[in-house]
C-alpha cells in the first residue's frame, strides 16, 4: 500500500537531511505509528505521502502510484484516495459540521444529493448524530476532531493519514478519537499516524516505527512508545 525505498530528503538550506535513506513498507489495512522527537522527520513522511514534498533520492509508492515522478496536475485526483486529519482540525469556522463534510464532497464534484445521503451516515459513524448543524465553535475539541475525521473518511479513502490528531485533546478525548481511528482501520483502511502521545501508543499495541534524526531506529510489530 505504501512503500518508501531508500528515501532521502534534504530541505534547501538545511544542514542535514530530514530523512536519510529511509525504507519502510506498509501493507493494506495496517495501523502504523510514527514516533520520534520534534524535527526527526515524521511530518516529512506525511508530506511525502501527500505529494507535498518530493524526495531528493529514492522512491515513494502510494496505492501503487509512484509519487516521486507524479506530475503536479495529477495531485488533486491522487489526494482523493487519501484522508487527512491534523492536530488543529482545519475546519471551516463559518460552516456547520454537516457543511464542513459536505464541502469536501462538493468541491471534488459530488452532487448535493450524494452529500445528503452520505454525510449524515458518516457523522453518525463518528458519533456526532444529532450535532450535524452545530458550528465548530459550538463543539468541543474532541467533537471538532470527529468532524475532521468524518471529512477525511467520507470519501472512503484507502489510506488515512493522521498528523498528531490527539495533540490538542485531553487524554480521555484522545482515547475516544483513537477508538474511532481503530474502527475506521477495521473497515480495511490503512491508518498512518504521527504522534508524541506515549499513552496512546502503549495502549494500542500496534506497529511502531521510531525515527530519530531522519533515520529509522526501531520498527516493531506490536510496539510500545519505549
Amino acid at each position: 500500500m505504501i512503500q518508501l525505498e531508500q528515501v532521502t530528503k534534504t530541505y534547501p538550506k538545511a544542514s542535514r537531511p530530514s530523512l536519510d535513506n529511509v525504507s519502510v513498507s506498509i501493507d493494506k489495512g495496517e495501523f502504523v505509528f510514527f514516533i520520534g522527537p520534534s524535527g526527526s522527520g515524521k511530518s516529512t513522511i506525511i508530506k511525502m505521502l501527500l505529494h507535498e514534498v518530493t524526495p531528493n533520492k529514492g522512491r515513494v509508492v502510494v496505492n501503487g502510484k509512484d509519487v516521486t515522478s507524479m506530475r503536479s496536475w495529477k495531485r488533486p485526483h491522487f489526494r482523493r484516495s487519501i484522508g487527512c486529519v491534523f492536530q488543529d482540525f482545519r475546519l471551516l469556522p463559518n460552516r456547520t459540521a454537516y457543511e464542513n463534510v459536505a464541502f469536501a464532497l462538493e468541491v471534488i464534484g459530488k452532487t448535493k444529493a450524494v452529500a445528503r445521503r452520505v454525510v449524515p451516515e458518516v457523522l453518525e459513524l463518528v458519533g456526532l448524530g444529532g450535532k450535524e448543524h452545530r458550528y465548530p465553535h459550538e463543539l468541543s475539541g474532541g467533537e471538532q476532531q470527529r468532524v475532521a475525521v468524518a471529512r477525511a473518511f467520507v470519501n472512503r479513502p484507502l489510506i488515512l493519514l493522521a498528523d498528531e490528531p490527539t495533540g490538542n485533546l485531553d487524554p480521555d478525548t484522545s482515547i475516544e478519537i483513537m477508538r474511532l481511528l481503530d474502527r475506521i482501520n477495521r473497515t480495511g483502511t490503512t491508518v498512518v499516524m504521527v504522534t508524541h502521545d506515549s499513552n496512546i501508543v502503549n495502549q494500542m499495541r500496534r506497529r511502531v516505527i521510531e525515527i530519530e534524526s531522519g533515520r529509522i531506529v526501531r520498527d516493531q510489530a506490536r510496539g510500545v512508545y519505549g
Partner: protein
Amino acid sequence: MRMKYVLSEVLVGLWRNVTMTIAMIITLGVSLTMLGASGLIYTKVADMKELYFENIQVSVFLKTDISEEERAELGARLEADPLVSQVTYVNKEEAFQRFQEMFRDSPDLLSAVKADQLPESYRLNLVNPEEYKTISEQYASAAGVDQVVDQSQVLDKIFNLFTAGQNVALAAAVAMAVAALLLVANTIQVAAYSKRREVAVMKLVGASNWFIQAPFVLEAVVAGLIGSVLGLGALIALKKFLFDDALSALQGLFAPVSWGEVLLTFPLMAGIGGLISAVTAWVTLRFYLRV
C-alpha cells in the same frame, strides 16, 4: 451546483473588498478607454489617408519665362506618362482666381498679390499617389519647370500629428494598464488570503486546480468586463460631447467617427480587459496559492 458555487463566490469576492474592486475597475476602465481611443485614431488615420490620397494632386509649377514650345512639350510628356492619370493646365488667371477664393478672408494678402505674379502650372492626378517622388525626380529638372510640389508632404505632417496622438494614448493606456494589473494582483491576493482556509481544505481533499482557481480568475474577468463597459461609456461621451459638439467646426478636416466604429471598440476593450485580468489573476494565484 458547482457553477452556482463558483458564481456566488465571484460576487462575494468582488463585494468583500469593494473599495479595492472599485479602484481596480476604474483604472481598468481608464486604461481601456485609452486603448479604445488609440484604436479609433488608428482606423481614422487609415480612413483619412485613403480619403485624402484619392484627391491628392501634384503641382508642376512652370517658370515665368517658359516658351510656348517647352510648355506644349511638357504637357505632351505628362499626358503620355503612365504614372499620371489626369493632367489639368492652370494658367495665371485661373491660379489667381483660385488664390482669391482660398484667401478671401485675408484682404491684405489678396491686395499684395497681383494676377501675373502667380505661376502657371500643370495639376496632376497620379495613378498611385505614393509614386510622387518618381514624378518629382523626372520633371523637376525638365526645361521650363520651376518646382514640383506634392500635397502629400503637407498631409504627412498632419498624419504624423495624429500618429503622435495615437502613441500618447497608447502610452497612457499601457501605464494605466500596469497600475490596473497591480491592483488586480493585489485584489486577488486579498481574496486568496481571506479564503485561505477554504483553499487549504480544497487542496487537501483533492479539488481540481481549475475549481480552486476559477472563482478568483472569474472575479478578475468580471472586473475587466465592467472596466470595458466603463471604457465604452467614456468613448461614447467623448464622441458626443467632444467630437460632435465642441470640435464640430473641424468636421470637414477629420474623417467622421460613426457610432458603429465606437461600438466596435467594445469587443476589443472587453477582450483585452478580460484576458489580461484573467492572466494576471492566474499568475498571481500560481505564486500565491501554489496550486
